[in-house]
C-alpha cells in the first residue's frame, strides 16, 4: 500500500476515533491533519509502520496534548486527556477501533440542514477538503466554508451527540444518513463526476460493513446498478449501447438488490430492483415491464411522490402502450413539482411522438429543452427534437 491509500483508508476512521475521545470535532480534525502531516514527513524516510492506524492515533493524541497545553480554554480538559494517552488502549493492538458509524450519524443528524449533511459526510468521512466539497456541490468555496463552520458550531454548541441511535430510533434516523450518501452520488451523476459517484459507493460500502441493514444494502445496490451504465449515459436508456455497461457492477448490484428485498421492502431496495431489471435486460423492448410497473406500485406506497408516479407512467407506457402512459402523465399535469421538471416534458414528448402527434411532441420537447439544467441534458433533448421532427 502506498502512503496515499493508507491515508484514504485511515483518515475517516482516525477522525471518528478522535471525536469519540475528545468530544470535539474541531480538535479532532486539527490533530488528524497534524498526524497525517507527520506521517508524510516520517513514512517516506522510515517506511510505512506495520500498524499505520495505531501509529496515526498515537501521534494524533500527542498532538492533541500539545495543542491543549497551548490553549488555555481547553486546559481543563488536559487532565482527562492525559489519562487517555497514558492508558494503553487494548483495542489499538489490532489496529484502530472503528467508530465511523457514530460519525455518520452525527454528520447526518436531523437537527442539521439537509443540504449540509452530505457536505459533512464528504468532509469527515471521505476526507475531502472544503474546496473539494464545494466543487462537489457546485457552490463557491466561501459559501461552503460558511456552511461547514455553521454546521460544526451547531454540533458543538447544541451538543449533537456522537452515537449510534438505538434500534428503535433507526427507522427515523437511518434515512437521513442514506440520503446524505445518496446526495453525494446524485451530485456526482449530474455533474458527470465518476470520482464523486465512486466516493459515494465507497462510503456506502463502509456503512454496509458497519450496519448491514436492508436499506443500506439497497442503497449500495442502487448506486452500483446506476453507476454500471455510466459509460453509456450520454444517451437515453432506450438508446444506450448495452455492451458499454459494466457487467461486474451489474452482477454485484443485482445480488445485493436481491438481498435487500429478502423478507421485506424499503425504498432503496425497490429502486435497486427496478434498476437491476433494466441492467439485466438484453434490450429496452424486452425489459420485464410488468415487473417494473409492479415495483413502482410498491415504491409508490413506500414513498409517494410525483416523480415516482412519472416513472411509473413511463413503465406503464411500455407495458400497455403509449396511450395508456400518456393518460397517466396528463393526470399529473397539475403537480407543482412536475411543472418545471424537464423529464416530465421529455416523457410527454416521447409518448406523443410514439402516437404520431408530431407537433405536440415537438412542443413538449422544446419545453423540456428550456427547462433542462445542464448542457448535456439540453444536447440530448435537442437530438430527440431532431428525431421527432424527422430531421435525423
Amino acid at each position, binding site marked *: 500500500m502506498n502512503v496515499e491509500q493508507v491515508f484514504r483508508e485511515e483518515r475517516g476512521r482516525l477522525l471518528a476515533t478522535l471525536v469519540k475521545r475528545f468530544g470535539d470535532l474541531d480538535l479532532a480534525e486539527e490533530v488528524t491533519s497534524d498526524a497525517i502531516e507527520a506521517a508524510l514527513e516520517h513514512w517516506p524516510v522510515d517506511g510505512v509502520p506495520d500498524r499505520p492506524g495505531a501509529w496515526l492515533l498515537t501521534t494524533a493524541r500527542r498532538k492533541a496534548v500539545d495543542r491543549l497545553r497551548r490553549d488555555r480554554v481547553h486546559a481543563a480538559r488536559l487532565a482527562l486527556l492525559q489519562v487517555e494517552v497514558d492508558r494503553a488502549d487494548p483495542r489499538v493492538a489490532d489496529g484502530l477501533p472503528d467508530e465511523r458509524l457514530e460519525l455518520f450519524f452525527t454528520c447526518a*443528524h436531523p*437537527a442539521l440542514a439537509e443540504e449540509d449533511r452530505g457536505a459533512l459526510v464528504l468532509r469527515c468521512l471521505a476526507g475531502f477538503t472544503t474546496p473539494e466539497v464545494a466543487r462537489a456541490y457546485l457552490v463557491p468555496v466561501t459559501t461552503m466554508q460558511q456552511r461547514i463552520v455553521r454546521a460544526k458550531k451547531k454540533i458543538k*454548541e*447544541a*451538543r*449533537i*451527540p456522537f*452515537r449510534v*441511535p438505538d434500534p428503535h430510533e433507526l427507522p427515523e434516523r437511518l434515512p437521513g444518513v442514506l440520503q446524505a450518501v445518496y446526495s453525494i452520488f446524485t451530485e456526482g451523476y449530474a455533474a458527470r463526476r465518476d470520482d464523486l459517484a465512486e466516493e459515494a459507493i465507497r462510503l456506502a460500502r463502509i456503512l454496509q460493513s458497519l450496519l448491514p441493514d436492508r436499506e443500506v444494502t439497497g442503497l449500495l445496490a442502487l448506486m452500483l446498478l446506476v453507476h454500471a451504465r455510466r459509460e453509456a449515459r450520454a444517451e437515453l436508456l432506450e438508446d444506450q449501447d448495452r455492451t458499454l455497461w459494466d457487467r461486474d457492477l451489474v452482477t454485484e448490484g443485482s445480488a445485493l438488490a436481491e438481498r435487500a428485498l429478502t423478507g421485506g421492502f424499503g425504498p432503496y431496495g425497490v429502486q435497486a430492483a427496478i434498476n437491476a431489471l433494466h441492467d439485466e435486460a438484453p434490450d429496452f423492448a424486452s425489459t420485464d415491464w410488468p415487473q417494473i410497473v409492479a415495483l413502482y406500485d410498491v415504491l409508490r406506497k413506500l414513498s409517494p411522490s410525483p416523480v415516482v408516479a412519472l416513472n411509473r407512467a413511463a413503465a406503464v407506457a411500455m407495458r400497455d402502450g403509449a396511450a395508456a402512459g400518456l393518460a397517466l402523465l396528463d393526470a399529473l399535469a397539475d403537480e407543482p413539482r412536475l411543472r418545471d421538471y424537464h423529464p416530465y416534458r421529455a416523457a410527454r414528448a416521447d409518448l406523443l411522438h410514439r402516437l404520431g402527434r408530431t407537433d405536440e411532441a415537438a412542443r413538449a420537447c422544446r419545453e423540456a429543452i428550456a427547462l433542462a439544467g445542464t448542457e448535456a441534458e439540453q444536447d440530448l433533448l435537442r437530438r430527440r427534437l431532431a428525431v421527432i421532427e424527422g430531421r435525423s
Partner: protein
Amino acid sequence: MKYMLMIYAAADQQANCTVEDWIAYEKEMKDAGVLVSGHSLADLVTATTVQVGQDGRRTVTDGPFAETREVLGGYDVIDVPDLDAALEWAAKCPGSRDGGAVVVRPIAEF
C-alpha cells in the same frame, strides 16, 4: 447541558391534548430529574411590550398580537446529556402535537 423547550401551540390546537396530558408530562420530567423550571404563559392578549430608545424614553405598547399562526405558550428548561435527549423530551411534549411545535434551544454557557 441545559436546553429551553419553547412551546408554540397552534392557534386552533387543543384537539387531542388535555390538561391531564400536560400534568403527566410535567410529572414525567420531574420523575426523571431533568426539569429545571417551566411555566405556561397567560393568554397573549395580556402581553405588553416595553422598548427603551436611545434617548432613554420608554415606550410601552399593548401586545404583540399573533401575526404568525403560532404563539409562544410556555417553556420548560431541562438538563439532559445531549441534543438527542432534549429532542426526545420535546417529542413527548403535548405541545408538539396537533399542529403545535416545540423549538429546542441550548442555553448558552459562559
